[in-house]
């Protein structure tokens, strides 16, 4: 995790420093945590940075622990947008991006504050899913951030070399086949107009893409698992996710397995110690997709999916 921080500082991304950061100068008492606003690439970036700052591994961290700082960041973001008086669309866009993550974090924090056992099972489960989805996204984001660092380094070092890209020597240019260029001024003007006409600005949507990414649901993945098991008999987890196109599917399939186990649709078997866990249909009951739909589909703020 410590490498993340150094990268952030090398690139012009994140320099949110604990304690003495002078970047924002928003008149907060010295010593408080502040972030260099606008240096971050969205909510995942901020979250990753907050986790890094606490030297927590995102595979272990309880996200609830960084919630307060995250919410504080969101507040400053809004404050600054107001001050800058920038266009409302952009502010709205940015805010929704952060809200998705913030609401998930708040849920997690609330769960920690509640005494164990007071929450209904389904809510526990929703929370588990919310957290895991957030983890999955963070892991993915982190992986791409590292890949970006590799690309950035290559881009930088390669920039110090230049390819030879020169116009053809006249003797050889003269050998080229005579140009067929019988287009006429009118058609030429049409082409020019086509290129020079102002392009319609791409619709500035309030970014909803982050809310509706790939359509991955527990119900659908449970169905996929049941089909696979019906066709192949017992399988291990690796085989069950072999066709998954992204991490999120793996995570959701894992959650679906838990749900299916709870409903006694499947059973687990381990033949030798530390051996692969074999999963097969238990045959005791069918999977109740509706129960899952009820459980998860209403959960708008974590439904990036």
């Amino acid at each position: 995790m410590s490498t993340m921080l150094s990268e952030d500082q090398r690139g012009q991304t994140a320099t949110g420093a604990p304690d003495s950061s002078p970047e924002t100068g928003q008149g907060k008492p010295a010593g408080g945590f502040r972030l260099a606003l606008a240096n971050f690439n969205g909510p995942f970036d901020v979250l990753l940075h907050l986790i890094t700052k606490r030297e927590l591994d995102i595979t272990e961290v309880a996200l609830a622990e960084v919630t307060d700082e995250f919410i504080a960041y969101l507040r400053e973001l809004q404050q600054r947008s107001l001050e800058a008086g920038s266009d409302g669309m952009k502010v709205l866009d940015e805010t929704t991006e952060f809200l998705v993550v913030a609401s998930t974090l708040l849920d997690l924090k609330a769960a920690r504050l509640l005494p164990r056992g007071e929450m209904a099972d389904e809510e526990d489960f929703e929370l588990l899913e919310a957290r895991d989805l957030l983890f999955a996204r963070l892991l993915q984001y982190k992986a791409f951030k590292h890949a970006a660092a590799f690309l950035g380094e290559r881009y930088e070092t390669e920039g110090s070399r230049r390819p030879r890209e020169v116009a053809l020597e006249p003797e050889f240019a003269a050998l080229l086949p005579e140009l067929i260029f019988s287009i006429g001024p009118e058609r030429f003007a049409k082409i020019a107009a086509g290129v020079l006409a102002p392009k319609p600005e791409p619709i500035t949507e309030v970014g909803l893409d982050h809310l509706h990414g790939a359509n991955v649901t527990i119900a659908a993945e449970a169905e996929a698992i049941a089909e696979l098991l019906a066709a192949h008999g017992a399988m291990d987890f690796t085989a069950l996710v072999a066709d998954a196109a992204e991490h999120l599917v793996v995570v959701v399939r894992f959650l679906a397995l838990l749900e299916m186990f709870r409903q006694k649709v499947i059973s687990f078997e381990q033949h030798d110690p530390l051996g692969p866990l074999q999963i097969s249909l238990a045959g005791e009951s069918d999977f109740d997709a509706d129960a899952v739909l009820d459980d998860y589909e209403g959960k708008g703020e974590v439904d990036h999916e």
Partner: protein
Amino acid sequence: MSEIAPIDQLPGGLESGLEAVLMVADTPVSSARLAEIFEVPVPRIAAALESLASEYDSRDRPRGFELRRVASGWRFYSRADYADFVSSYVLDGQTARLSQAALETLAVIAYRQPVSRGRISAIRGVNVDSVVRTLLTRGLITEYPEMGDGGATLYQTTEYFLERLGLGSLEELPALSPYLPGVADLESLDSATYDD
């Protein structure tokens, strides 16, 4: 092709012939294409190119240029040591840096191509419209010829992307999985997902 080729009858032979062709090339030239031009087998071309490249590098005086294999072929480059002087001669956007946002977006496209803006946004958690435009203008990405689901435009990296990063092919991109810590199951999934 085993007897004496025309190029062998010229002073300097194949190596000088290769130098002459590469001197006018404005894109990387593959050994296969050079083999056709000089009517000699590909392995002989490859060996001659390697030998030229190392001659430029390791002579008592390293040359101001180097011969490198990038994207789909070979090409002359100015040597990095002299970058300061070269850039004071050539003023253009080549050295303009890419922002962190542009690099992250480029990474997602490189590993997930062809990919829609919506999918990139989902992974990065932010709107990427303007960054994608920048990458298009820089020639690092281009539109994929086919539409994605629901008519979304898909993007892919270009040959220039490989050239600009000094990569021989997309396979030379490091695997994404080592960057994902401690998730064994995801690890094995990665090889299935990303190495395509």
